[in-house]
């Protein structure tokens, strides 16, 4: 059932910019239109391009924020999340914990 919701109406997660828009809802309580506009501005793309794989895949690769395919050695997980936090100007708790432990 959730897969059907994702396919029918979801933003596409790491395939596009779904995770980035979700971060803004979580971190700043932004409603959907505002969160999309914010992310689009940070990425330098238009709002409709946020769900365009042809735009988002190469852009995510270039920014090093994780893509959905298994590119060898490509940043994913906490490394990608750290870059996402910096790109969007937000605090991500897991990233902050990781940094604390690296610096301890």
């Amino acid at each position, binding site marked *: 059932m959730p897969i*059907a919701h994702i*396919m029918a*109406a979801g933003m596409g*997660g790491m395939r596009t910019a*779904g*995770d980035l828009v979700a971060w803004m*809802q979580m*971190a700043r*309580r932004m409603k959907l239109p505002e*969160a999309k506009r914010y992310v689009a501005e940070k990425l330098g793309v238009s709002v409709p391009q946020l769900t365009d794989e042809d735009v988002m895949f190469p852009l995510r690769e270039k920014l090093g924020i994780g893509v959905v395919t298994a590119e060898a050695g490509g940043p994913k997980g906490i490394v990608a999340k750290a870059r996402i936090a910096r790109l969007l100007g937000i605090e991500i708790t897991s990233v902050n914990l990781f940094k604390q432990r690296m610096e301890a």
Partner: protein
Amino acid sequence: MGEGIFTRMGDGERIELGADELRQELLDGTRDAAEKGRIPELSGSELEQLFEIIAEPGRIVSVPPGHELIVTDDGIAENFRASEADGGAGISMDRLSCFLAYERGIAADTACTGHEDFSIKPVKAIIDYEMQTYYTGSLSTTIPFFYGAQPNLGLYYQPDGPYPNFAELMPLGKIDEARKAQEDAAEALKDDMIFVGKKLYEMGCEGFNFDTAASSGDADFYATLEAVRELKKSCPDMALIVGMASEFVLGMHGKMRFDDQQLAGMFPHQQVKIVEAAGADIFGPAVNVNTSRTMPWNLSKATTFVKHTVEQAKIPVHPNVGMGVCGIPMMVETPIDCVTRTAKALAMIGMADGL
């Protein structure tokens, strides 16, 4: 099948409706929501848009480009390995593999983990295990990673818990005792929610989903709101979702108040304001499905409630769209035609921020 429009009942049974019958179902559904919640009905053009979504000939439907929304969930990634009760597939996969398959195989916007029982109380006993699981998952996932649990106040009453069972006391006329039991149980639940939330925050928890809140009525909702307020102070960077159990907060206690407002009897557009005031970041309304009515009737009712709730909300609204809520038929294997039509209607007409 004949010449009618293919749809279903609220229990999933296939039916056909003529165009006039379908329009009448949609009108009756929105009127039911408007009457119950004392909120505006859907407009004529919105009802016609809903008609077109239901009547689309394809088995599955989807939103046009640009109208996509965010999908959050209640531990669905683990449904690869979970049991039938949760709609799980029972595949032999470890938890981390589930999260990553959901993130990269399904391309979900967010993922969520939780205890197999998905209630707060049993998490306490294995908190170290859950902390380790969350920590490992958060290092590996790129998408936002939630921990989720239901408040589930029912587990705190005898015979499952230490407090007298209010449902046994009330038929005996022991109303004061029943209320006292709920108040005591709510305090214990609140403490457990705060304990679990803080422990996971120590592990870098990015978000916590309090799912199916108020399932045991107003005392359950009270404990959730109190816990959210405290957690927002002590764990400010952990996003909090409050998802509801039903469209109407049951007054099992009847006098529970939060910020001087009575909780019993609140509908989604009122629930969102109190959840917002408590400090939550995302609200998940649940609108009950009547299995004796048609899916279009139920979806029209749900869309009416969701649309008004979104209009009232200052925080993102992600309607709960699992089995038996917000238009989805009440069955374990939910039909894909209904699931996708619900998603499209709540995105396009309900103007939801997510699901």
